[in-house]
């Protein structure tokens, strides 16, 4: 316990900066009082953001400093030790301990004295940051927690906007997070992504990111991103709609159907560009017209999804409106459909890339050509001299 409470204390420098900043606001108060003027309310309002920032930083510190996910050297070292979940983590615990109250209680007390209405805000903010950062580290096995977190998080403000309910939701989420964290560390390091990393896949991703490989290797290789299943598409669309519902509630007014049309156009365009941007039709438009093959089913099937998305954002809401469906429900149903169709309608990107009736556009083949500039020539000379001198 003694060791733990010192481990989880925030870094000294941050503590000093916060305390100094906070005290400065009081010194300003005193100075203004000495001048004989009333203290403006604005000075008091600076203190609450300071407390919130301190809570955010503490939440960030509690995960970033102690979780092996965020420190490669620590993780690699830990992998070589006989550490197991039943032993304490050498750098300090990732899960919350009583010693965390040493930091959180003073922040809460300060919040109470400034704005008693926002007493729980420091703990709420701290828990929010802590949960998000912990959630990022989770593997597929803990995926259900991530989904749960994303679904339950809006309950912190919806439908009551009450800080005690928000705190209750976050505490509940923390309990679930703790269970997932135990499960995660039970599988460490063998079942973690950094242990199971597919090195070739990593290299390829890095090579593509850094544009080391391109035409034709980038488009004719065997590695592809995993596809989104229908259930995942459903869940993702539902989640987006749920967040939209909460945002609408927070704003306090419903969105107009014009937004839906805009959204449908953007999503349809995005999907069409993803599928047809690089992968062009096997024959040109002129070729289609003059050969009478106006529709090439094996290629044009990729436009079915964008058309459906467009219909879901334009014609469907009007039709549902005529049938008497409430505007809020109408909007949210169509919003859900737009994303669900975009993510789930066939062909999947993987299937299309491997089996589509496309040709790879000429722009892909020739965009890298560039004449050698004098500067480039100078660099080449420099490197060749360096090479010669190093033998």
């Amino acid at each position, binding site marked *: 316990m003694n060791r733990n409470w010192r481990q989880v204390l925030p870094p000294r420098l941050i503590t000093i900066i916060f305390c100094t900043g906070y005290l400065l606001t009081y010194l300003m108060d005193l100075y203004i009082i000495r001048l004989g003027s009333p203290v403006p309310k604005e000075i008091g309002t600076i203190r609450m953001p300071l407390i919130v920032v301190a809570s955010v930083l503490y939440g960030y510190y509690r995960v970033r400093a102690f979780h092996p996910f965020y420190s490669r050297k620590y993780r690699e070292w830990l992998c070589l030790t006989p550490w197991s979940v039943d032993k304490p983590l050498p750098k300090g615990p990732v899960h919350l301990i009583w010693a965390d109250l040493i930091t959180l209680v003073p922040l809460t007390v300060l919040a109470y004295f400034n704005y008693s209405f926002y007493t729980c805000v420091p703990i709420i903010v701290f828990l929010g940051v802590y949960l998000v950062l912990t959630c990022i580290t989770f593997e597929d096995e803990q995926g259900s927690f991530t989904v749960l977190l994303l679904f339950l998080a809006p309950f912190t403000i919806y439908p009551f906007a009450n800080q005690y309910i928000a705190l209750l939701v976050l505490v509940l989420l923390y309990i679930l997070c703790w269970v997932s964290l135990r499960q995660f560390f039970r599988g460490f390091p063998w079942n973690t992504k950094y242990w199971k990393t597919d090195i070739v896949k990593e290299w390829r991703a890095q090579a593509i990111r850094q544009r080391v490989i391109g035409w034709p290797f980038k488009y004719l290789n065997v590695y592809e991103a995993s596809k989104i299943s229908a259930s995942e598409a459903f869940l993702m669309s539902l989640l987006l709609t749920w967040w939209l519902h909460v945002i609408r509630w927070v704003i306090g007014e419903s969105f107009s159907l014009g937004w839906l049309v805009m959204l449908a156009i953007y999503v349809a365009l995005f999907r069409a560009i993803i599928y047809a941007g690089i992968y062009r039709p096997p024959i040109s438009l002129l070729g289609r017209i003059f050969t009478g093959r106006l529709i090439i089913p094996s290629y044009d099937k990729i436009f079915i999804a964008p058309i459906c998305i467009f219909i879901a954002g334009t014609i469907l809401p009007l039709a549902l409106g005529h049938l008497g469906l409430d505007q809020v429900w109408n909007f949210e149903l169509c919003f859900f459909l737009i994303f669900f169709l975009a993510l789930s309608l066939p062909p999947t990107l993987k299937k299309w890339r491997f089996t589509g009736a496309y040709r790879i556009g000429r722009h892909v083949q020739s965009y890298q050509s560039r004449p050698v500039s004098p500067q480039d020539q100078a660099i080449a000379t420099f490197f*060749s001299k360096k090479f010669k001198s190093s033998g």
Partner: protein
Amino acid sequence: MINVVNVWHHYGIKPILRDVSLKVEPGELVAVMGPNGMGKSTLLGLMAGVLWPIKGYVEIDGHQRRNSVEEEIEIRKKIVYLPDNPYLPLYNTGREFLLAVGRLYEVEEERLMEHAEQLVKLFDLQENADAPIRSYSTGQKKKIGICSALITKAPILILDEPFSGGLDSSALLALSQILKRLADRKDVTVVMAVPVPELVESLAHKIAIIAHGKILAYDTADGLRRTAGSTGDLAKVLEALIHPEVFKNIESYLDGRIS
């Protein structure tokens, strides 16, 4: 084995390939020859999977191209395509590019480093291997492109005009000797588009002559001579097959000038 079956292709209105069929046996080195703009690169693009035939299909080792995800993955593991104008990462070094391509094809890491060094030496790129590719000359860029195809160790090479693009004499010799050795050992199957006949005869097991979207002849060099009824060098055989009237035209042109 590469099997091109009744393939038709056109980008716009004009057909580029018309009912082309071609079979390349494993370990064969086939040169595709013919005048410019007659469909050599298109045929290679179809074999490489860059293009989709309007009609017909292409099979690689019994798997039809773009038929199913699994089959296409199997094909892509085996085949490497070097276009006439490949992408080169201008801000990376030649060696980095070679290693990245080798890793893409899952060449063992220890072998990869060694192979990259050998290729760099072979194509006389030692001095530039660790310099950014943007500083390379046209010929050096061509060389690094060829190295990238060779480093993959893929059993099927589709090479679009590998001998053109500013290669110096040593690189021409190195490439032709490598291809010849691979062809003699029947280690890899190579299909390459070559516009000049001089290099082809000593290398290719078979030559496919393509003109006006059709395969005019597909045989060994001797077989082509028999077909053309000519005993001269391959250039004359090709001209006799592709442009039977060309010699007559040359004679009449020269006669006209002299008289």
